[in-house]
């Protein structure tokens, strides 16, 4: 346990060093932590406060203000349904409901086997390909409900 903690602290120090410990880089540092852990573990956030000499309240404020941060573990594949205007008028809500059914979770939740987390995002900038869903960073364009089972199967592998 002790060594695990030390390891994590070393890892965190590395991340903080990338930004020379600048307090103004807090968001970038949290982004890197999320990249490393897939979410923002509270224990690490506490360490961030200590290492950077920022009150935990401030760290927490930033971590909860921005939509990109998650304080709970996320699945192996993050499924992001675009809820931008172009996707909305092309029926994105039906895609979201379909995914909720297929994955048996609500938007914002993670499947029990931790394979998928379902989220909504505001416009992926691929509005010309609406409706779009991004899975694991890959954009799936002109998506129809019919295609969903096959696509999910590919990510389950």
């Amino acid at each position, binding site marked *: 346990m002790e060594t695990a903690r030390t390891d994590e602290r070393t890892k965190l120090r590395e991340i903080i060093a990338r930004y020379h410990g*600048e*307090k*103004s*880089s*807090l*968001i*970038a540092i*949290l*982004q890197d932590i999320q990249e490393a852990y897939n979410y923002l573990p509270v224990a690490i956030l506490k360490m961030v406060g200590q290492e950077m000499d920022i009150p935990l309240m*401030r760290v927490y*404020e*930033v971590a909860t*203000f*921005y*939509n*990109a*941060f998650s304080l709970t573990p996320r699945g192996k594949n993050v499924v992001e349904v675009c*809820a*931008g*205007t*172009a*996707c*909305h*008028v*092309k*029926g994105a809500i*039906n895609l979201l*409901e*379909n995914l909720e*059914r297929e994955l048996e979770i609500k938007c914002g939740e993670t499947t029990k086997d931790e394979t998928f987390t379902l989220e909504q*995002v*505001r*416009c*992926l*900038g*691929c*509005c*010309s*390909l*609406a409706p*779009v869903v991004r899975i694991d*960073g890959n*954009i*799936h*364009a002109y998506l*129809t*409900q*019919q295609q969903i089972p096959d696509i999910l199967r590919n990510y389950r592998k």
Partner: protein
Amino acid sequence: MSKINTLEDLNKAGKRGLATLIPSGTKIMVGMATSGIASGAQDVYHALDREIRERRLDIILSRTGSMGMDCMEPLVDVLEPGKPRLAYGKITAKKAPTLLEQIAKGTIETIKPFYRMDEEESIILGKSKRYGDGSVPAYLKEIPTIKEIPFYAKQVKIATRNCGLIDPESIDEYIAKGGYSGLYKAITGMKPEAIIKEVIASGLRGRGGGGFPAGIKWKTCREAKGDVKYVICNGDEGDPGAYMDRSVMEGDPHSVIEGMIIGAFAIGSHDGYIYVRNEYPLAVANLGKAIEKAREYGLLGKNIFNSGFDFDIRISKGAGAFVCGESTALMASLEGAAGEPRAKYIHTVEHGLWNRPSNLNNVETWANVPAILTRGGKWFAGIGAQNSTGTKVFSVVGKINNIGLVEVPMGTPLKDIVYDIGGGVPHGRKFKAVQTGGPSGGCIPEKLIDLRVDFDELWKAGSMMGSGGMIVMDDRTCMVDIARYFIEFLESESCGKCIPCREGVRRMRDILEDICAGKGQAGDVELLETMSQAIIDGSLCALGGSAPNPVLSTIRYFRDEYDAHIKEGRCPAGVCKALIKYSVDSETCTGCGMCVKVCPTGAARGEKKQPHVIDEATCTRCGACLESCKFDAINVK
């Protein structure tokens, strides 16, 4: 790489760029912007690359950004010596060998290009360069030129001048198109005041939404007290349905960087920031590489063009908060804090980032600056409309045939954009409205189709320019649902600092949800109007101040739809789930069984080859049957 210190150095780099831009051999370009990649451009690129290497072909393969015609993606352009440049649409990896064979044979037999370009335009240099000797081989005469196809005919490209033409990773190609000559002219030959005068004369107004004159902002920031000043680029592009800034950052990052250096020199700033939204990884990557290249060339860093002027740029990534596009929230976010806006009376040009004078402009605004410096403010002011000079990039998306990015002179009639460029509404449906201005904007109804699109005309019509999203809607788009959609968006994006926005918008969402759920009451519309005024008057920042716009504009033009929901319990567009019914048209149904197969609840039933039926009680109105029916036999009412 040696530094660029003189005009001669710059010209040398330009020559190098021209050698790859229009090489002596054959070149194939693949559109690799995010939208291209999402359509499969990566596979196409790899397939071409493999074939070229396996067959040892003497062909240069290169990547470009997007020319805007996203509906034809993946796009591949072919440039052979002495011939016009040919554009091929919807190319797949499978088609790659055929395309290469066709090039070897010198035909267009199997895959037809959809347009040709006889010359390469450079708006910065103010001239075009013919490919080869400019002659067009007989077999290519039947292919329309780019200016003959309706999508491009009315476009004038200034901000997106290089997108899709150059390799965004090649600073030399950017220079070959006249890049960094505006900066050279500004730094070596002009006083900061003269630069600002030029920008004021151009009439350039901010492209991020507010439309504030850029030159005036620069002047105020220059005159503000303080030794340390900041120049910032707003690449947050939060309006859903808009992606012009992404296209510029991905496809022509140097245009933004050059604009910022010119601005920094004029204002007297040595530190620049580009704030890019989290959702745009490729934009961040391409900007990062471009900044590195500019540093290598000495165009960023110390003593630019031996002038003694220093300037550098840092990229900062957003973390998914719409409000961070607002100037004071953006600066708070750059400082590493939560992005909460400040009261409006404190001006960021005097007290901005770290409480120092800061000049924030949008991506597209910056990208216009180099063109203004090289061609002159007067030239720019001669394009577009009276009080809205120049061009504007729009993302024309939604229910429209030719989906894509278009850049047209300000004042272009909406009709030209929707029908000529956009090619009208698909599937023979009826055009209803265009939504502009993002969540702060409104819907322009069909009856205003002749409206000339500029800052002031949109404002008069109850909408806004915003960042340039144009979401086209047809008779199957419910305007009450759209109002609900935007209000729900703003409720979740409100930072919560001031009460009118936090609580007012939430209450409006409740009312709109009720109306969409068939629980609307007489007087709801009037209540929405009263609340709107209170929110507009009482909010701290423009997010709240403009939040009611989508509601007010839909009430203004589509009151009948609100009444249908409230008084008749009917959603005329067939969208609001509580108010609609799915049924099968027994005349057109062939009994193919598709709806039965896709229906998740078993509501769609029927024997093969017999007309099917949908059981109302178990139907969840998920639309799966509608989407999959090949015979248009599903009715929604």
